[in-house]
């Protein structure tokens, strides 16, 4: 008995200590990044020379960064929307219907999850080269759908359970067409999952570097711009760009949370 008591006392203490250590580790580079984005001098390393906004000014004035930001937004938005749409439809087909080759099709859809981005990016590069197509953001978008759609598919599939099936059957009994059922009943019922899938897909697309690096030339996404920024000199402009992205992400998360919370309260 005494052993159990001591353990249950110490457990949370050690646990709390360990978790704090983990959080410190996780946040360390971000704190360094944000701190030195306000660096007064040139080099983003100690000593810290008083807060200054010059690197943020440089980042906003840098046309490449702004272009990259917009391109990343576009590619992320379009590829995520496509991924969620196609993934949802596919999950619906697998979950509600039975047809020959169903298992094989599901395996094909999930397959890209098991393959590294390098292979996907290289495949697209080699194919475009073989077909005489130049590098372009559309190829990157297609590649991002390849990596994200299986995720959206899996998330939707996990959510399309028995509960929705019964409501759908009832709606169909009342005369609703398949599409009506799909968009008026099923989609809203799993709306949180759809939103979560969209956000996840967007996060992955936003940060994806390799497929974008291989398949773009002048119109590039933000990670590629930052990679080339790093090649272009030792200064804190990258810090400012990274901190700004971080800030945007926090704001986005707050907006999504508010949207979701508002939905729930209704």
């Amino acid at each position, binding site marked *: 008995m005494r052993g159990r008591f001591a353990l249950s006392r110490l457990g949370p203490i050690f646990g709390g200590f360990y978790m704090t250590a983990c959080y410190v580790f996780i946040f360390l580079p971000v704190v360094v990044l944000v701190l030195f984005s306000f660096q007064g001098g040139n080099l983003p390393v100690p000593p810290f020379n008083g807060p200054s906004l010059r690197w943020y000014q440089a980042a906003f004035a840098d046309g490449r960064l702004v272009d990259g930001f917009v391109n990343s937004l576009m590619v992320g*938005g379009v590829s995520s929307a496509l991924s969620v749409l196609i993934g949802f439809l596919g999950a619906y087909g697998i979950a509600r219907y039975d047809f020959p080759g169903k298992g094989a099709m599901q395996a094909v859809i999930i397959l890209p999850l098991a393959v590294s981005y390098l292979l996907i990016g290289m495949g697209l590069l080699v194919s475009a080269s073989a077909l005489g197509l130049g590098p372009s953001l559309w190829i990157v978008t297609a590649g991002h759908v390849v990596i994200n759609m299986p995720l959206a598919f899996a998330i939707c599939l996990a959510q399309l359970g028995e509960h929705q099936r019964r409501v759908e059957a009832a709606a169909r009994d009342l005369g609703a067409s398949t599409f009506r059922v799909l*968009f008026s009943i099923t*989609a*809203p019922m799993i*709306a949180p999952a759809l939103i979560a899938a969209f956000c996840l897909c967007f996060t992955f697309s936003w940060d994806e570097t390799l497929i974008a690096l291989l398949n773009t030339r002048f119109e590039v996404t933000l990670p590629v711009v930052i990679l080339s920024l*790093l090649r272009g*000199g030792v200064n804190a402009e990258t810090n400012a760009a990274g901190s700004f992205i971080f800030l945007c992400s926090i704001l986005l998360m707050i907006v999504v949370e508010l949207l979701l919370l508002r939905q729930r309260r209704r």
Partner: protein
Amino acid sequence: MEPRSLARNLALRLTIAGLMGAALPLGVVSGAQAQGSLNVLTWCDHEDPTLLQPFEAANGVKINYKDISSTAQILAVLGQSKPGDWDVVVMDQTDTGRLAKMGLLAPLDAKDYPFADIPAEIANPKLSSFEGKLYTVPEKFGYNTVAFDKTAVSEGAMSDIQAPWDPKYKDRVAVYDYYVPEIQYVALALGKDPTAISDADLPAIKEKLAALKANAAMVGDVTPVQQALATGAVDILVGGGEWVTAGMAKDKPNLDYIIPKQGGIRWQQGLGVFAGSNNKSMATKFIQYILSPEGQGKLATSSCYWGMPANNKAVLTPEQKKILRWDDQPGYIKVSYPYLQMTPEMDQKLQALWAQVMQGK
């Protein structure tokens, strides 16, 4: 929870998102096509907005550039491109003959450029011309010798070319990742003439280079090695020169470079126009802009790396000239060797040698 209103909400939100998503590409694409563009293959020192924007504004053109860090990379990019994809090239001038022979460069008219203001050694026709025609215009030069942290190693020790191989500096050395000057520097350390490397020299060079890599902590491109030296991760940079130290002179006055008593290697960049370019007149204007005193001043103090401008009328403050060691240049030029002018076969051999040493353990 009413499914219908939720559905309508969701549908509305998705539609708006979709429309925005569709509208943005149209906006961006049409914006980009409104101006003409000039596609430039260049080293990273031509990427500063302060350098490019005056030209872009004055000529209503957008400059698209792609970063390269060797002539081999230029050829690789050209191999992946169609003719007309690229207009201007910034390259090591020693490769002018090779690219001109391959028919990649368009002949230029010397009258268009301020050759009167360029020192004779830099304007050497051997570097800029091929078969009597001008193909590239010199724009910037500097040295690949050894840069170091004055507070960590002594200048006296670094004046011997063999210093980076010394075991007492193990893991404190960085090697600049450009095979041409590094192999030449190694050849110099072996006592050979770095402008006359033959096949017979290669095995000895490979061994000496491997020994250097074994003594080094890292091998990196322009920015990583600058950073390593700046943060004190390494104390010695083989292949370094003012291009590493000058830009950081204010923040890091402890960084210096020296041409060893055995000599050093000199890099020199030139601007050329691609034969397949559809924009040759704009390309020429760009070269003239870079060669102008204002352009030369900004190029010399580029945020990626500094270097000596070819045009001695370049607009620089006395402090900047001091950092660049303006007055010492004639002496430096005399004791340094230019890059190797290679045949394509020799280029392949040197690249293979470099890859073998760098990828091996």
